[in-house]
């Protein structure tokens, strides 16, 4: 493939049962493209964590996935409350998730550290009251 492929997903606000649809769809598409399963696994785990975060912390948002010849870039942009202290949020175990989220199996404060672990590069741009954009790159 010579030209970059761009995929866009709108993550609906607060619909927990549907969170993961975008990551599942991306997984199918990458499989069809014949991408290495080990790379697919990294990409979809990182994106799924981000997708869940958008739903539980930021009322949804937009995900743009760009696939080039040498990397997959995921940009997750939301207009949520922003992250007041990114360094703190990146620590394993830090979570502001309420109890109802915990009873659904999330909110252990493992998502952001896991996204960092599974991506080759990750940046978090955030402003309180404006939103958060997480960009992750995984090399092919």
């Amino acid at each position, binding site marked *: 493939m010579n030209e970059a492929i761009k995929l866009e997903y709108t993550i609906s606000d607060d619909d927990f049962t549907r969170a993961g649809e975008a990551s599942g769809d991306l997984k199918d598409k990458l499989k069809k493209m014949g991408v290495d399963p080990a790379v697919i696994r990294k990409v979809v*785990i990182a994106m799924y964590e981000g997708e869940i975060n958008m739903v539980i912390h930021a009322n949804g948002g937009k995900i743009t996935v760009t696939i080039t010849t040498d990397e997959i870039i995921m940009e997750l942009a939301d207009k949520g409350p922003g992250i007041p202290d990114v360094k703190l949020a990146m620590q394993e175990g830090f979570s502001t998730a309420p109890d109802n989220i915990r009873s659904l199996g999330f909110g252990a404060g493992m998502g952001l550290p896991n996204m960092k672990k599974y991506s080759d590069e990750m940046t978090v741009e955030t402003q309180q009251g404006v939103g958060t954009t997480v960009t992750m790159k995984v090399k092919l």
Partner: protein
Amino acid sequence: MTVNDIKELLDAKVLCCEEFLSNEVHTACGSDMMSDVLAFVKDQSVLITGLCNPQVIRTAEMMDITCIVFVRGKVPDEMTLQLAKERNMPVLSTARKMFEACGILYTNGLSGGKEN
């Protein structure tokens, strides 16, 4: 061990995707916390859980988990089961409790997987 071996050992019911009963499982993870599953599980694992919602199926899918076992006789709702079918994820249900189910599988040779 195969998915079918797990079914026999736990006297479990297969709720969907019977066609994958011969798939191989090497490791196991017992958890109700999907956050932890996403952070620690290796592939070709069985996920043993008491949590029943669509995100269990999604989590298993992203982690390339081989099959899910719901403990304490839990059966997921129709929507969750439908998602499992769509995503080709075998789902089993056993009357065993979490601790027992894990113990039985461990005794029969499944490990928790090595740390990376």
